[in-house]
């Protein structure tokens, strides 16, 4: 067991050569690769850390926005509720106005119809009453009734106020229109002429006319002035009274 010095020297050289070769072919590349991988991993970790920070910042920003949204949500809800309430009130008001307008229109129409109906009733009632009265009077009228009407008219003329007589005379301008329902005979005419001339003046002449619508009686007309006693006069008065009664009833109905 001894050392072979040639082998000893050769082994030292071999070891040094092996050290150099492995350094070139193994350690250098492997260590470089590992170092590069470490750097890559470190850079990726750093990148991940930065991204994490960025993500945390974004998360915080979104959380802030979410909080703001939560805060504003109640406000918006209240605003929307108020708007809805206002809109509801507007709609209700509009509907109420529309209903009121429709109701008013309907009432007006009702009133109009009622008025028309009442007027129609009034007109028909008056017409019927007048017709009945006219029929009665016409059927009962005769020369003697006419004569009585004439006498009544003459009494009226006689009782006339002198100032009024003067005014009629002036407006008559010499001619007075005498209207009767039945034809007046010559005697009757002379008598009327005589009475007229006595009441007014001898210069006044009578112009006789027949108007069956009078029913019976006599009317004396001159320049817008009228005096007489006839069924038509009574009927007109009756019509006025009835109309007044109906108008009063109508007013009380409306109230």
């Amino acid at each position: 067991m001894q050392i072979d010095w040639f082998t000893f020297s050769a082994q030292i050289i071999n070891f040094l050569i092996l050290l150099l070769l492995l350094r070139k072919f193994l350690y250098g590349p492997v260590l470089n690769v590992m170092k590069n991988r470490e750097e890559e991993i470190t850079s990726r970790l750093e990148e991940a850390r930065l991204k994490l920070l960025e993500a945390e910042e974004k998360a915080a920003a979104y959380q802030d926005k979410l909080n703001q949204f939560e805060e504003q949500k109640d406000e918006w809800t209240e605003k929307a509720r108020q708007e809805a309430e206002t809109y509801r009130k507007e709609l209700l008001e509009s509907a109420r106005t529309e209903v009121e307008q429709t109701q008013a229109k309907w009432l007006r129409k009702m009133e109009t119809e009622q008025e028309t109906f009442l007027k129609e009733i009034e007109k028909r009632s008056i017409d019927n009453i007048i017709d009945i009265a006219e029929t009665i009077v016409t059927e009962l009228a005769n020369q003697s009734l006419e004569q009585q009407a004439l006498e009544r008219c003459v009494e009226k003329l006689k009782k006339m106020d002198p100032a009024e007589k003067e005014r009629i005379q002036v407006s008559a301008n010499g001619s007075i229109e005498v209207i009767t329902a039945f034809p007046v005979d010559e005697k009757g005419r002379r008598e009327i002429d005589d009475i007229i001339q006595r009441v007014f003046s001898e210069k006044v002449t009578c112009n006789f006319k027949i108007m069956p619508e009078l029913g019976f009686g006599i009317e004396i007309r001159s320049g817008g002035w009228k005096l007489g006693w006839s069924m038509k006069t009574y009927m007109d008065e009756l019509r006025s009274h009835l109309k007044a009664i109906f108008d009063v009833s109508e007013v009380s109905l409306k109230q």
Partner: protein
Amino acid sequence: MEINIDQIIYWEWGFFKLNATLLFSWLIMLLLVAGAWLLKRDLTPGRKMSRWQALLESLVVIIKQQIEEATQEKADKYFPFISTLFLFIVISNVIGVVPGAYSPTASLSTTAALASCVFVAVPVFGVMTRGARNYFRYYLQPTPLMLPFNIIGEFSRTLALAIRLFGNIMSGSLIVAILLSLSPLLFPVLMQAFGLLIGVIQAYVFAILALVYIASAAGIHNGSTSASIT
């Protein structure tokens, strides 16, 4: 059965000779360099890598961790020397199980050469790290009277390195050879397996001791531990 494989000579020319130690050392070197070249070809810095690269990187990481644990500093400076020692010795030790092959570390010349490399590397790393004056002042500690003992300590631990490795590997080969002549097949196979374990452990012990010597010389451990570990 040759006890000294330096005596197995295949070719000789004057002072130069090709014995089993050198032949198998070259074969191991060739194996290591070829393997390194093959691995280097497929090295990739990405996350997808071959199994061999993963194995190699795991080995590198383990060696670096061992160095960093022992030196308490970055392993880059010591890594090539220590890992070359370990790889060469571990392959040399386990190649002995191949029939017809001889472990170069079963030769005292090889182990002495490797121990001598450590012997030289210790002051080289010490001077590089601490400076020549600081390093050589260590030999005068604690008193100048200790100079001869410190020098003897340096030589003796180098000798111990060489003899330990040589003795373990040579004895393992010798025991298997003796058992082959005495007992049936099974028991020597067991001893061969055991020899593999011994080989790996001895490679580890050699590399770690070399590391500790270098680290102590570099002032990592305040220069007090190296003399006690032999």
